[in-house]
């Protein structure tokens, strides 16, 4: 039995000799990466507390769910405006400096920077250490870079919210924890960041906490994530049991010695880790919290619930790539969950009316693609998609935020109480909001997978690899992977459709906002449009860092346009090469499998981009012809398949009936039968018995001196009698 390996013992773990050699490059002040957002949090947090205590009215309206009531931003906004985005910009510059240094150093092993011993008890030793390697560097760049743009956008979006300092405090704290998550050098540190971002997510979803629904959405996110965290924790316990440590380097270096490839331990560990990842990254069956998380401010949705935090699960799987490569069964499960989630979420997105809900399901669907990539062992492709998705999904959310911002203002001015997020109330926004419109179209084409935008390269790489693995000669799950491949293609087409639908309903057609409000629709301020433009540029060019070599070589003249062929593959190679080797050894070389029977990647690229473009054009023509009615004039929700999708496959209802209500009933029973009857009953019985005994004893106290004298005498006689007799 393989579990015998759980007995703790002094394992001699083979240290990668390259680890010592890595000293050739000195990281540039890596601690600043963490300290800057933390300092921002402390400063903004102090300002928030001060602003709240200075005026009771600020506190009262600080929780106002209507962010656009104040006429001019109060003085409390001045400092957070500079501190919040400023900390992020500086952190991004530090990350950039490290990135430049690292790319010049040709680093083969991670640089671990230990700070202090955090937990040292018994044989458990967790140090507060950060690990700089190609993967964590890339994540740091995305988190700080996209994070900075979203902070900047927030300056405009949250300008009129009295909770402004508090908002930036939370946002900075989030970035701090996210950086701990990606930079941590062991699972313990990663877990700290993991929980920290969960906390910030909860705080920011419930940012307008006086609204009961929004506060509940925050709680839902937190509770659903707990289920995943349970898996992560147990996986950590198992890893500690096998390796006696939680350090990434030791575990990955010793994985092949301590565990049997394909054995029970490694499969269990990876499945439990996947449970954690499913919670954090909103994968089936734990995806239900993410759509509700849209209750938070829209830039929060862009940063936390699209670009960074929800991709933590993908990062964790990619980080643990060696373990996953040793567990083919887990890989099949990860890929299966990913592709199923992608499909289910995409179908739900087809019938949603809330613009943020569409984007939320789109995010879940794209995360599913990432898990498909990570599951089949294409870790680079998964991280690639993570990165490009961060660009175009952040752009989509910020564009949607600009539209909601504009709609809210207009409806507010017109005195209308219509939902500013409902796409049925929008329409025709392209005229007043030209920048947002163009940026959103770029992002839509990118996510749909149109050549040569970012999403095309990353998504198609995942789909290509799925096909390649399906055809790998020794893959025991080959048939399953073929199914994954077909579903992934179908989902990619659905993506193109629902995104086009979003664009048509929001920006095209006649305006449905009402004549009064229409005059007030306006373009977003420049502080909001600049991040849109930067992200749009990234959404166009972001995919060019990893153009497949085959594609570049077979199209003459492409080299000049796309110089960075397979750059990301080479960049991440030191991180993923061991997993790739393991997998190649186990399943045969994927390069030999050719899913399109000799047609090659060029033909595949041509087909997929044509298919996506066809869907976009067809959907655009078809949906543009349709006349949508405003939400207030729309009929009851449809039945049949449409209703099934509009109601999100009834996931919430099933969980409510199957889990929540039985749990509430059980709790109620525990309360009434166990707590109230048995426990409280016992306690009360003891109380009553004591009182009864006291009453009985008090009867002896008559107040008659004679009685006492008699009792005294009797007592003396008894004692004397006893002394004499015994």
């Amino acid at each position: 039995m393989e579990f015998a390996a759980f007995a703790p013992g002094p394992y001699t773990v083979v240290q990668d000799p390259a680890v010592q050699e890595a000293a050739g490059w000195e990281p540039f002040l890596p601690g600043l990466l963490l300290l800057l957002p933390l300092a921002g949090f402390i400063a903004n947090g102090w300002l928030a507390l001060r602003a709240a205590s200075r005026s009771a009215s600020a506190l009262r309206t600080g929780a106002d769910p209507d962010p656009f009531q104040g006429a001019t931003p109060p003085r409390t906004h001045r400092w957070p405006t500079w501190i919040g985005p400023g900390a992020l910009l500086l952190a991004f510059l530090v990350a950039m400096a490290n990135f430049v240094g690292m790319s010049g150093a040709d680093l083969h092993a991670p640089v671990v920077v230990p700070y202090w011993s955090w937990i040292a008890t018994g044989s458990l030793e967790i140090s507060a250490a950060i690990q700089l390697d190609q993967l964590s560097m890339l994540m740091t760049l995305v988190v700080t870079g996209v994070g900075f743009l979203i902070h900047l956008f927030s300056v405009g979006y949250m300008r009129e919210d009295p909770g402004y300092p508090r908002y930036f405090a939370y946002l900075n704290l989030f970035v701090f924890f996210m950086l701990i998550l990606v930079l941590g050098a062991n699972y313990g540190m990663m877990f700290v960041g993991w929980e920290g971002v969960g906390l910030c997510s909860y705080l920011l979803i419930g940012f307008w906490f006086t609204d009961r629904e929004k506060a509940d959405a925050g709680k839902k996110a937190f509770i659903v994530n707990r289920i995943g965290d349970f898996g992560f924790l147990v996986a950590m316990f198992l890893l500690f049991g096998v390796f006696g440590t939680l350090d990434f380097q030791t575990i990955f270096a010793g994985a092949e010695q301590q565990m049997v490839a394909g054995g029970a331990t490694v499969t269990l560990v990876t499945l439990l880790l996947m449970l954690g990842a499913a919670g954090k990254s909103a994968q089936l069956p734990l995806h239900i919290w993410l759509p509700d998380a849209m209750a938070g401010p829209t830039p929060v949705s862009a940063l936390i619930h699209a670009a960074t935090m929800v991709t933590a699960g993908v990062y964790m799987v990619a980080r643990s790539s060696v373990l996953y490569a040793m567990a083919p069964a887990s890989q099949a499960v990860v890929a299966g969950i990913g592709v199923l989630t992608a499909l289910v979420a995409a179908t739900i997105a087809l019938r949603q009316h809330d613009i943020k809900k569409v984007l939320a399901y789109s995010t879940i669907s794209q995360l599913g693609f990432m898990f498909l990539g990570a599951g089949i062992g294409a870790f680079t492709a998964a991280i690639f998609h993570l990165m490009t998705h961060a660009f175009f999904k952040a752009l989509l959310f910020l564009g949607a935020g600009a539209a909601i911002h504009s709609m809210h203002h207009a409806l507010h001015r017109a005195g209308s109480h219509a939902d500013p997020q409902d796409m049925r109330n929008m329409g025709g926004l392209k005229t007043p909001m030209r920048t947002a419109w163009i940026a959103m179209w770029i992002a839509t084409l990118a996510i749909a997978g149109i050549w040569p935008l970012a999403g095309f390269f990353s998504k198609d790489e995942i789909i290509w690899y799925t096909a390649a693995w399906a055809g790998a000669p020794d893959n025991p799950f080959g048939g399953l992977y073929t199914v994954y491949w077909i579903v992934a293609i179908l989902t990619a087409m659905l993506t193109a459709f629902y995104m086009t639908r979003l664009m048509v309903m929001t920006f095209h057609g006649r305006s449905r906002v009402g004549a009064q409000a229409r005059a007030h629709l306006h373009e977003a301020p420049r502080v909001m449009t600049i991040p849109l433009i930067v992200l749009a540029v990234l959404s166009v060019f972001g995919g060019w860092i990893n153009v497949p070599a085959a594609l570049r070589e077979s199209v003459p003249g492409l080299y000049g346009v796309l110089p960075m062929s397979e750059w990301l593959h080479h960049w991440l190679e030191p991180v993923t090469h061991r997993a790739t080797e393991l997998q190649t050894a186990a399943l045969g070389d994927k390069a030999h499998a050719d899913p399109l029977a000799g047609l090659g990647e060029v033909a595949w690229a041509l087909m997929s981009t044509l298919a996506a473009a066809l869907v976009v054009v067809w959907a655009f023509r078809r949906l543009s012809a349709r006349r949508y009615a405003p939400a207030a004039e729309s009929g009851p929700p449809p039945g049949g398949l449409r209703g099934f999708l509009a109601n999100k496959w009834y996931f919430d209802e099933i969980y409510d009936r199957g889990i929540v209500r039985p749990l509430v009933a059980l709790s109620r029973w525990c309360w009434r039968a166990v707590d109230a009857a048995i426990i409280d009953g016992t306690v009360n019985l003891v109380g009553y018995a004591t009182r009864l005994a006291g009453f009985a004893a008090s009867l002896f106290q008559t107040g008659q001196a004679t009685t006492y004298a008699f009792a005294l005498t009797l007592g003396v006689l008894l004692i004397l009698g006893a002394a004499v007799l015994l």
Partner: protein
Amino acid sequence: MLSHALMLSAALFVIGTLGVVVRRNAIIIFLCIELQLNAVNLAFVALSRYTGIEGQLYVFFVMTVAAAEAAVGLAIIIAIFRHYKTVNVDQFNLLKW
């Protein structure tokens, strides 16, 4: 000889004790307490013949305490009588729960 003295002492003590328990008049109870004390004194004196002078010493102490007690006790009884116009102890039962 000793046994006679001790038997007398015991008899006096039992009479005193019974008096304390059964009588209701505070003055009588008081007298009975004095009787008990003196019964003990008698035992002390009788035993000191065999065991040494300490018994007689104790008698003096007891007599002193008895004198002081008589003074305080009688004062209390007088105060009670002035208030209740009676010295029957079964009339006084305020000191209870």
